[in-house]
């Protein structure tokens, strides 16, 4: 899988797609959606889709796709090259969601959660396939969150498509398995070829699985930590593992939208305060021009 476009800017998301043969445009197709790298605190999350004519379901099923998690990396690579030599039977697309995009989305002012982000990415990919002319009649999706709600959401967006959202769809429907393999191959490659913009060179480029519980991943997080900036943008800052390290070992940072913990101190004044004698000389007040601009005279530094 050629990822040179992603490697040119690892902060941005990137769409990579196979050619789409004419059969996929003229014949009704089924399309599978799955993701790879949702849990890890490191690297991009990748969404993948795979599509093929409904008439060839049997032939497609015999290609030996299985849930990408049950396969070794080598097996996945082999199947992926088989996928690419069968482009008269199928097509695929992946979208690489960069860790910077994931962090920024989840940590913006109005938090964009991972489920919503995942749903939107799946919808975007299916729409892109439709834009390329793929004639989709059946859609199979591995669920994220509640399958019933997700299915209703997809049906609303794609009213003319038969939508099936299921848990473990990647082991139930070969077209979803194929999508999961494309996604996993893309995720593994992106992680393996990661080059740090932050000029970090590791003696041993081993991040482990990227899952927060993995000792190698923990080691990497500690080694790459900076007390002011936190981590290189390979790390998902929005993961609690990363946030906890920043809170514990990092310099404290206050944001304007931080929730105020000490809200109670300046609570409603007591009734008696209204009857207090006003001080003789009212304090000189600044003009609101200055108050609004938070300008105050400086008398000492």
């Amino acid at each position, binding site marked *: 899988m050629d990822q040179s476009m992603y490697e040119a800017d690892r*902060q941005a998301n990137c769409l990579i797609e196979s050619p789409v043969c004419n059969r996929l445009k003229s014949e009704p197709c089924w399309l599978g959606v799955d993701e790879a790298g949702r849990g890890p605190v490191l690297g991009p999350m990748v969404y993948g889709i795979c599509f093929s004519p409904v008439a060839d379901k049997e032939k497609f099923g015999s290609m030996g796709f299985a849930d990408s998690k049950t396969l070794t990396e080598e097996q996945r690579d082999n199947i992926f090259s088989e996928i690419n030599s069968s482009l008269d039977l199928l097509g695929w697309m992946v979208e690489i969601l960069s860790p*910077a995009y994931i*962090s*920024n989305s*989840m*940590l*913006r*002012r109005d938090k964009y959660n991972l489920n919503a982000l995942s749903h939107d990415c799946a919808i975007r990919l299916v729409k892109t396939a439709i834009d390329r002319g793929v004639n989709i009649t059946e859609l199979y999706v591995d669920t994220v969150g509640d399958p019933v709600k997700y299915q209703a959401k997809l049906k609303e967006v794609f009213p003319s498509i038969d939508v099936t959202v299921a848990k473990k769809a990647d082991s139930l429907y070969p077209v979803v398995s194929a999508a999961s393999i494309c996604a996993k191959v893309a995720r593994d490659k992106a992680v393996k070829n990661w080059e740090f*913009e*932050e*000029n970090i060179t590791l003696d041993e480029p081993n991040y482990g699985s990227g899952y927060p519980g993995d000792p190698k991943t923990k080691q990497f997080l500690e080694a790459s930590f*900076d*007390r*002011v*900036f*936190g981590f*290189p*943008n390979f790390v*998902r*800052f*929005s993961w609690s593992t*990363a946030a906890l390290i*920043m809170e514990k070992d990092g*310099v*404290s*940072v*206050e*944001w*304007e*939208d931080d929730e105020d913990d000490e809200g109670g101190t300046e609570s409603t004044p007591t009734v008696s305060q209204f009857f207090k004698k006003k001080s003789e000389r009212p304090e000189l007040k600044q003009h609101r*021009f*200055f108050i*609004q*601009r*938070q*300008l105050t005279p400086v008398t*000492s*530094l």
Partner: protein
Amino acid sequence: MTTTIDTRSLLFASTSDSCHLMPCKVHLDDEANTSIFFHPSIKQEGQLKTAAFRGRPLNGKVLDIPSGYTGVMLTERGKRSTEEEDRLLLVSHKFDHFTYWNLDKEPSSDDLTQRAMQWIDLSSVLHRPISSEESKDSQESVKGQ
């Protein structure tokens, strides 16, 4: 306690091309690895910039220091042992522009910092010496009302 800014140090201060006003308070007064961790995240599209700090999205814009003014960074030599001791501050860097950053919001003229800069124009008008002609005019206009 008096605070003195040694203005002669302005002559020797180096010019900084990379000054950032962050939308958060970082509780540290020390050097930071900005060139390694912050600068690579900055992307520019037209006048507007984007960047990230601790995973949070920032939107920024370069603001010029108004003409006639100089931006300075002050540093203190040594630490005082008591609160009463006098302070001597030196200008270590000067700058004529800086990047203003908002948290996940495009900079606009409604932002505090940009509005605070209005005071500079206003204050120069307020403090401008009034010629005798002008003062006569304004008095007459008051009378006329």
